């Protein structure tokens, strides 16, 4: 009976600890946990299983099962990427291990001062766990911790996903290796071969994919350059046509009556308004004006205030690699789509594009006005969009890629997107 009560008590403590882990995860990632009603019974079952494992299994097995359990549960009950779940889990574990060691040191010190405490180990463990959890919650709320998490997150994003998964597998393998059980030791060779096979397969697939990608990119780039030349020619034709048309209209104006003169003035004003945007496109770095023309053209008649400010003297394709160029086009396309759509719905309807060549990067700044409501935490997440159309997949697919950095700042009613793309070395 006593044992049963003790097991229930331990399970309750484990349950609290698991709730704390989910709380810390939520604080670190700012990611809401879905389906909370289903999660609570799962945590209760999980707590009972963990208590059972702690009693009957070795700590290493227990640890491996716990890691897998949390990773799976977090993947099911949140919407973030598995790689990010691993990142936040590592941080949570580091924090808890630190607190565990700290609590143990204090307990051992107290035992030295009050030897009678050795008779109450069964009470000390749950009490220690509760103190540890409270300390974890307090530490989690500290701004410095959030700053640290955000900074390390940016570094973590640079590591390739496959490397992260392999490291995770190695950690699990190392933990298995820590067991001194003979049949596990015999498995070592098989596990090494298995892991090496995975690494080799991933590497070969990656090399093949990148080769295929380079070929596709070269074809796409040639097509883009052709399209670009076509657009520039179109633009020239349009300018000549506009110039001739206005000259003819002015000619007619000199012999027209007042009503016709008024109409001619309005027509000239309209042609000049369209000319403003299209002539700005001449200033865009060569290689990007095609994509901007395509996007902007559809909004020309919708009275948007678009201004393009280019400070790049050379051709974009001469300063960045084809792969970076492709990434830049992709990012610019997505951000520009969002910016134009959001600006169109706003009061001032402003879109401003700025291109700059920095020492190591090409920097594109897209600023637009917007209206409505924005969820700060959900920006850049899958299925979240600020423009009420589409599904927000575009921006989500770009964030976190190598060689491209994106920064979003919202300043009052302005949405500021900065795209930084690495230059050729």
């Amino acid at each position: 009976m006593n044992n049963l009560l003790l097991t229930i008590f331990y399970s309750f403590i484990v349950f609290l600890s698991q709730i704390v882990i989910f709380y810390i995860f939520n604080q670190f990632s700012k990611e809401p946990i879905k389906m909370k009603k289903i999660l609570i019974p799962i945590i209760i079952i999980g707590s009972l299983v963990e208590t059972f494992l702690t009693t009957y299994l070795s700590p290493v097995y227990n640890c491996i099962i716990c890691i897998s359990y949390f990773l799976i549960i977090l993947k099911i009950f949140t919407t973030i990427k598995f790689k990010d779940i691993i990142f936040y889990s590592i941080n949570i574990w580091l924090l808890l291990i630190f607190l565990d060691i700290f609590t143990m040191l204090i307990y051992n010190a107290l035992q030295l001062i009050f030897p009678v405490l050795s008779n109450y180990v069964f009470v000390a463990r749950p009490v220690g766990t509760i103190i540890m959890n409270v300390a974890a919650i307090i530490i989690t709320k500290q701004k410095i911790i959030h700053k640290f998490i955000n900074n390390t997150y940016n570094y973590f994003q640079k590591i390739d996903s496959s490397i992260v998964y392999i490291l995770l597998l190695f950690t699990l393998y190392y933990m298995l290796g820590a067991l001194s059980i003979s049949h596990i030791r015999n498995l070592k060779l098989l596990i090494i071969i298995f892991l090496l096979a995975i690494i080799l397969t991933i590497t070969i697939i990656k090399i093949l994919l990148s080769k295929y990608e380079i070929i596709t990119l070269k074809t796409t780039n040639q097509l883009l350059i052709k399209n670009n030349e076509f657009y520039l020619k179109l633009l020239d034709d349009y300018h000549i046509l506009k110039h001739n048309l206005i000259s003819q209209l002015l000619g007619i104006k000199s012999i027209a009556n007042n009503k016709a003169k008024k109409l001619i003035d309005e027509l000239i004003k309209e042609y000049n308004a369209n000319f403003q945007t299209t002539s700005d496109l001449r200033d865009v770095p060569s290689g990007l004006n095609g994509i901007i023309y395509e996007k902007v053209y559809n909004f020309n008649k919708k009275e948007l205030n678009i201004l393009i400010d280019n400070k790049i003297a050379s051709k974009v394709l001469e300063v960045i690699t084809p792969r970076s160029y492709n990434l830049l086009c992709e990012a610019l396309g997505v951000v520009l789509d969002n910016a134009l759509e959001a600006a169109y719905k706003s009061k001032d309807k402003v879109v401003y594009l700025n291109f700059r060549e920095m020492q190591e990067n090409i920097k594109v700044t897209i600023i637009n006005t917007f209206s409505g409501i924005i969820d700060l935490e959900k920006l850049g997440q899958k299925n979240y969009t600020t423009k009420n159309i589409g599904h927000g997949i575009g921006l989500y697919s770009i964030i976190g890629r190598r060689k491209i950095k994106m920064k979003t700042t919202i300043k009052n009613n302005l949405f500021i997107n900065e795209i930084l793309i690495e230059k050729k070395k």
Partner: protein
Amino acid sequence: MIKFIVVEDEKSVQDIIKKVLRKISIANDTEIEISYHQKYNKNLLKDISEEVYRKVYILDIELEGSISGIDIAQKIREKDWDSEIIFVTSHDKMFETVHRNVLEVFDFIEKFHNMESRLEKDLQLIYNQKFDKKMLKIYSRNADLEIYLKNILYITRDKEDRKLIIHTKDVNFKISSSLNDITEKLDNRFIRTHRSCIANKDHIVEYNYSENYFQLDIGIKVDLLSKKYRKEIENE
């Protein structure tokens, strides 16, 4: 004290600006410092970097050399969003609308069309307005948010997803925080009107405790006024 930084290469325009500044300084009985530049140079860069309580830039757009007034404004905004910028120019409306928003330009004044009276009117407005550039800054993983406190109308707690909604005139923002946490980032112009609402009293024109609402200067009624906070509100 206000420091005026004038970047203008035409002597006649510089004289008009000088005259207006002197007039404004006497009218408001305020000490002013004026720094003149003809183009972008090291001294101007020093003026931009210098930390002065209040600065007003009067910039010509078309300047000698490759750096225009817009480029100078961009350089100013890289470091300083608090100072006011006035452009002396002759550009089209679209150009103005974009830069008014993007660079927070106070005004665009046409050089040869009532320049003196317009500049005087603008500077008087700058003198009269509260120098209030305090900001609420919130940093999240994917985006940073910066809003002038004066632009915030009220903040409510959304019951559904337990997030806060910051209401401004044209846009609203949802953030993960609590009313208690956000209060620490605000100043004393913000008051608690309800257990799930903090409001900017500078924007409130009426408190109606019998019908539990307060009215904002933009005409909106917010049904989040509780008698519980009446004493605190009236003491403020």
